[in-house]
């Protein structure tokens, strides 16, 4: 009798967990369905090629044009810019955290990095508007709202992801590798940069890709500092509009084909994220089969 109750309880727990995972799987599938189903009419009417490669975005003209090439380029620019700032700083910070940080300082530093991850993106936006945009305006050309401003803000935003993931993978490198290098007369830095980091590279790369995912999907902070003109910026001081900015700026009033085109913009963003996930999976698989570290 008591045994039955226990069994039922265990079964019940199992089904409950199953239900929870089904909810999350269901959410992913639903989102996929709605975004691609919603994008379909626009892609059918405009034509996928014209939509992706067109550089005119005139949703209210007669007839309207819907080309998001500039926005795709914009998203790629600011994401690449974010990596140029965020990846080296993040990886070096991770090296510091994993290999140099004095034990007394570590908890504080680690907390601060976590805090960086928890700051809402609108706060990053304010930081960019009040510090970075005026700085660029005063010292370089233009009004400051630019590829550069967005890149810096995003670069800071991806730092915690890059730092945390890289730190974990550097820590996972066996001590024997570092000892082996030191015993060959390598300095601490040489042991880290020529053995430790190569050994941790797939983990670091995974951190970078997660960071890229965060950067390319970021909306609020970017809208606040990027200027958002629909042009292909010819310099880093020029205004830029990302896919995310395009969606959030026009969603409020778009209707009909315009609305469909906005949803299709979201679908394009979604495809980027899917591709990043695939790359991440390949990296993780490669790390497992090559015996390397993730």
């Amino acid at each position: 009798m008591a045994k039955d109750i226990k069994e039922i309880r265990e079964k019940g727990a199992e089904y409950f967990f199953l239900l929870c995972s089904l909810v999350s799987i269901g959410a992913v599938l639903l989102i996929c369905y709605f975004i691609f189903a919603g994008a379909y009419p626009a892609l059918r009417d405009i034509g996928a090629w014209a939509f992706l490669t067109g550089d005119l975005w005139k949703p209210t003209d007669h007839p309207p044009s819907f080309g998001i090439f500039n926005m795709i380029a914009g998203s790629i620019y600011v994401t690449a810019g974010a990596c140029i700032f965020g990846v080296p700083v993040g990886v070096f910070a991770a090296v510091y955290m994993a290999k140099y940080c004095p034990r007394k300082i570590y908890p504080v530093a680690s907390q601060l990095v976590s805090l960086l991850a928890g700051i809402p993106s609108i706060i990053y936006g304010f930081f960019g508007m009040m510090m970075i945009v005026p700085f660029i305006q005063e010292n370089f050309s233009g009004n400051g709202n630019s590829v550069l401003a967005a890149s810096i803000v995003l670069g800071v935003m991806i730092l915690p992801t890059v730092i945390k993931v890289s730190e974990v993978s550097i820590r996972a490198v066996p001590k024997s590798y570092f000892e082996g290098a030191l015993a060959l007369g390598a300095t601490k830095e040489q042991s880290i940069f020529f053995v430790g980091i190569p050994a941790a590279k797939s983990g670091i790369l995974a951190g970078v890709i997660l960071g890229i995912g965060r950067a390319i999907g970021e909306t609020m902070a970017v809208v606040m500092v990027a200027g958002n003109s629909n042009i292909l910026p010819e310099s880093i001081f020029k205004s830029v509009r990302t896919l995310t900015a395009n969606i959030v700026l026009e969603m409020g009033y778009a209707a009909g084909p315009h609305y469909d085109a906005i949803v299709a913009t979201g679908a394009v963003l979604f495809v980027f994220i899917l591709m990043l996930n695939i790359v991440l999976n390949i990296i993780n698989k490669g790390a497992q089969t090559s015996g390397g570290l993730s």
Partner: protein
Amino acid sequence: MLKAPKPLKIRVEDMNLYYDSFQALINVNLDVLTNEITAFIGPSGCGKSTLLKSLNRMNDLIESCRITGKITYDGEDIYGKMNVSELRKRVGMVFQKPNPFPMSVYDNIAYGPRTHGIKKKKVLDQIVEESLQNAAIWDELKDRLKKSALAISGGQQQRLCIARALAIKPEVILLDEPTSALDPISTTKIEDLLAELKDRYTIVIVTHNMGQAARISDKTAFFLHGEIVEFGRTMEIFSKPKDKKTEDYITGRFG
């Protein structure tokens, strides 16, 4: 016929070593002579690895480690002005567990020379071949230089690690139980290799294998509780040990 004594390579004088308040080595004195194999034997935890790691200052990595006394290398105090990198370049080390880097066989061997500033591909190629030859593993690995070093057998990995140590052209090689993780055939290969390397290098080896110490070493130091109980020619230590404790240990009667 009287042979001239071999020149002194490393001298340990009145050395004490502490991990925090725990004293791991007590008043150690030891001379390592050039082109000899010196073996450290003794029960687990008696301080063999600790002394070995002191000889190339790998103990520097351990924060709690404190040393008194003196270790000289070619007459020079290694804890004095000598640069650690320079010391470790001259005193190579092979660890108990083979620890090839997760990169190709070639890059493993080339790591040391590259670290010390050798960039030319031709020179590196030659060092790689030479080192693998000297470690008697060239024939087995010459077609797999670009393969990951993690994909070769444990015995091959350990000889690769020896080759890696040889690639920086050291004068002394320290080995900490280099065969304890290996099968008998690999062990024999490494023992033969060490016997061959002896003519060109000075070797210090920690081993738990009495037979191994007896087979390959010229001198043996028997450790107990952080002290060297007896140090002398291997033949004498094994045939007529002066100390009862040494005798008990080598005959396996140690409690």
